[in-house]
């Protein structure tokens, strides 16, 4: 437990300047770790939950298959704002003399979370916790694609990602004593962690044409192993297994619009993402529904003469779930 690293009670008993710093640090670590032993009455927020919330934030931002989003969570005691965005590309490539194809992808992903919680301290006093997390991640994927029929294929692949997580935690309401003897109620602590994630994924993809219109249905399962390292927060020296399920559908059709001789297609889509292993306390949600519309331009180029880049699209959608509202608006490429 964190108390073995930060002797809170001794520091309070001997309020020297050094010990005052320790108190601040200890309180800040409490803010990061929300150690139940340090703050009786906060047993719902254990070290493990704090670890999970950090890892879940990274997973809900950087997992393969996720697109950009801006989310707002409001469930009374918790208000949070989260966004994620990615710049990347994934494509299949032919392996001659074999039925299966290769699959690769590269992406840079970024995201941020501002999580505000209202809690109750050991003596019944209200505590406000304000956590800001920022993550930047680089992800590479490689795998195979097995066409079972013209309409259905299975695609297992492996992704490796490296993430840098920066966290600023502010706790308001913990009473501490400053060297001057004044009571302090606010503490701020900055920590960082690096996370190495290995994700095994299986995609099941179905598509069928109805005249000039196309229906696409897919299911994506991701099993994620995360190894986290932190020099300044022992709570985040950890590892975890998580899994995510995505169900996606899209219906598209032709338009009469062209740009540079290339046609545009309209699309509507509906997706569901379920972070299967995620605790609702961690980020305030475990699943999301997304509905939207968009336009895709069939640019059909072959960068470096290596791989096909068929579509450049504009998409806008709304995201919803219990206590969650959000939206997505941006560019897509495939």
């Amino acid at each position: 437990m964190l108390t073995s690293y930060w002797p809170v009670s001794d520091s309070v008993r001997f309020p020297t300047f050094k010990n005052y710093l320790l108190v601040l640090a200890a309180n800040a670590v409490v803010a990061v770790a929300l150690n139940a032993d340090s703050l009786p009455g906060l047993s719902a927020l254990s070290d493990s939950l704090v670890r999970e919330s950090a890892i879940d934030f990274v997973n809900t931002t950087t997992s393969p298959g996720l697109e950009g989003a801006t989310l707002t969570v409001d469930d009374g005691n918790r208000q949070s704002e989260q966004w994620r965005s990615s710049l990347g590309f994934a494509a299949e490539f032919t392996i001659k003399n074999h039925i299966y194809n290769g699959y690769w992808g590269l992406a840079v992903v970024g995201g941020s979370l501002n999580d505000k919680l209202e809690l109750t301290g050991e003596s019944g006093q209200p505590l406000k916790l304000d956590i800001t997390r920022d993550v930047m991640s680089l992800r590479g994927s490689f795998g195979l694609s097995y066409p079972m029929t013209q309409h259905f294929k299975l695609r297992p692949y492996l992704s490796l990602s490296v993430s840098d997580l920066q966290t600023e935690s502010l706790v308001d309401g913990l009473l501490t004593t400053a060297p001057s003897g004044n009571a302090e109620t606010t503490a701020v602590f900055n920590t960082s962690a690096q996370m190495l994630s290995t994700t095994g994924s299986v995609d099941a993809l179905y598509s069928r044409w109805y005249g000039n219109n196309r229906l696409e249905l897919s299911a994506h399962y991701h099993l994620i192993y995360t190894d986290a390292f932190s020099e300044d927060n022992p709570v985040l020296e950890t590892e975890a297994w998580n899994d995510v399920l995505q169900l996606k559908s899209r219906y598209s059709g032709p338009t009469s619009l062209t740009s540079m001789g290339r046609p545009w297609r309209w699309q509507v889509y509906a997706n569901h993402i379920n972070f299967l292993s995620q605790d609702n306390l961690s980020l305030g949600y475990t699943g999301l529904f997304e509905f939207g519309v968009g336009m895709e331009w069939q640019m059909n180029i072959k960068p470096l003469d290596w791989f096909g880049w068929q579509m450049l699209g504009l998409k806008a959608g709304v995201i919803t779930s219990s206590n969650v509202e959000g939206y997505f608006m941006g560019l897509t490429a495939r």
Partner: protein
Amino acid sequence: MKLRILMFICSSILLYACVQSPGFKGDGYAFIRSNYPIVKANGEEVEPLYKLDIESGKNTLVIVYNTYRHDYYCRFGWTAEADTVYEVTDQENSYPLTLHRWVRTNSLWASRLDPMEPLECIKKPRRGNTADDSST
């Protein structure tokens, strides 16, 4: 030192990556490349090929799109222009394969133009499967 190595690697990739148009066999010839094997050219069966020099004018090729349950024998018929590159690939269109005219745009990318569907695709079961033949 690391920066130099990185610059060297990036420069090498860029040089290697330059898009180059393939050469032609001679006057009056076009070139086709396919991500899937060409098994019949102008009525004659050929060893599975992924590149082929073709004479300009009317051409008919049969190219196989393989899946684990079926093979799709797609027959393309079109009038090839001399000194032109064609490319057949899977673009998940209504037919399994699509024929494009391939044009070098610049050293960084090529364009796939004038998509053309096959005249027909005959679906045949792979060995061990019992599905009936049919066209798509």
